[in-house]
């Protein structure tokens, strides 16, 4: 089935964080198209996120949510259109991209020089982020020995490490227990309050009240709710 965007996604912040000439959007995707072979996944999709705005992207399987996120992160190239990002992107993929035989600290150490952080500072900051989501820090376990939820927490912490101007979180809470899940949404609000543009792909209806704006992507059409 061909996928089309009958109406481009539009940014209409519901909170008092209007886009102005002096505050460029944290993220602006304009008329993005993408096809995998003959299957068109995105057709002229546009999405603008203001600094300090939290947006949830919902939609059925195959609507192109993860593809849009990957394009916005710069991981894949769109066939048409473009994306402008203001500042550093923190991207949390749906599937944790981790080294199975390394510990959480070793992951932070690996990311440290890329982010321009001293090793010890990266580990300290990483541990702080993990502790906020009740990660079993005392174990110092290799990733292969972590539960699915703990792996996902590390996945999320790596996206947050070093600070980001835009957070792209693709169903980041999979495997979280209830406490961590609640904490995650509290953090979304606090990140937005700190001026970060936050985009969360989610399937859960309950999540939609926790963000400034909800954007629905359908296979037949992509439109704001």
């Amino acid at each position, binding site marked *: 089935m061909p996928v089309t965007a009958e109406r481009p996604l539009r940014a209409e912040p519901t909170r008092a964080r209007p886009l102005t000439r002096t505050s460029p959007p944290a993220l602006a995707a304009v008329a993005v198209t993408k096809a995998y072979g003959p299957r068109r996944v995105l057709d002229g999709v546009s999405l603008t996120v203001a600094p300090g705005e939290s947006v949830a992207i919902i939609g059925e399987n195959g609507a192109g949510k993860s593809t849009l996120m990957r394009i916005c992160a710069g991981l894949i190239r769109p066939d048409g259109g473009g994306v402008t990002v203001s*500042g550093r992107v923190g991207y949390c993929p749906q599937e944790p991209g981790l080294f199975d035989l390394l510990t959480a600290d070793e992951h932070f150490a690996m990311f440290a020089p890329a982010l321009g952080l001293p090793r010890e500072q990266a580990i300290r900051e990483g541990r702080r982020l993990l502790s906020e989501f009740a990660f079993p820090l005392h174990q110092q376990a290799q990733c292969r020995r972590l539960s699915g939820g703990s792996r996902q927490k590390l996945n999320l912490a790596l996206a947050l490490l070093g600070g980001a101007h835009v957070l792209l979180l693709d169903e980041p809470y999979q495997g979280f227990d209830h406490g961590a899940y609640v904490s995650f949404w509290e953090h979304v609000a606090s990140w937005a309050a700190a001026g970060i543009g936050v985009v969360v792909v989610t399937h859960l209806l309950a999540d939609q009240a926790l963000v400034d704006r909800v954007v629905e992507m359908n296979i037949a059409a992509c439109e704001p709710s």
Partner: protein
Amino acid sequence: MRAQLRARRILVIAKLTGVELVRRRVALGMLTALPLAFYGGSVGRGGGAVITGGVAMAFSIAGASIFVALTARPVDPRLILAGYHPTELLLGRLLLLELFGVLVAGVFSVVMVFGSNPSDPWALAAGVALVALTSVPFGLAVGGLAPHELEGVLALIGVVGVQLTLYSTQLMAKFLPFWGGQRLLDHSVNPGITVGAAVPANILYAAALFAIATYIMRRQAPSVGGAARHGAGTSTPVRVL
């Protein structure tokens, strides 16, 4: 300052690749035992054992390189997004794997020199070292191209296996990546075999393999690493807001 930062990044990647590799004790043991088994199995057949064992060492080092490349594949885009340059990731892995290769080659050379008493032990050591040197970029290139571990291992078995079945004087052997090493090993037990251009050709082959691995990595790399604009047809940040 910039060079220092690049060096630090490369060393961090090398170090943590080493940590991960060392933790694969069983796989590493099996990979190292494989060429020893090839050598041990053919040691009664005279000088041919040296060539078999030396070339089969590619199984060990290229195998480790393939696993390193494939293990890193899901993480690399995030590392590049965080700020690494694709070449830094590759150079870090190359550095560590070449060190591993030198270590394995050193031990293997000693085993074969004492086990087979070649007429030119230095040529044997040089041949083993050249196989090790070439195995890493070969493994990184295969690891970059292969969609899964199975395909990567099959490519490794195919290329090294074919090289093992050929004499170094055969035309087809010259088109395979370990020809120079094979020729040196051949020369170490058969002084009548000349080395000629085999060594520089092999070094060029290794360099080409590394260039292929770099090209694949850069192609798969994210199109943006920070504040940037990216879209159809662009591959590098063009505008910082």
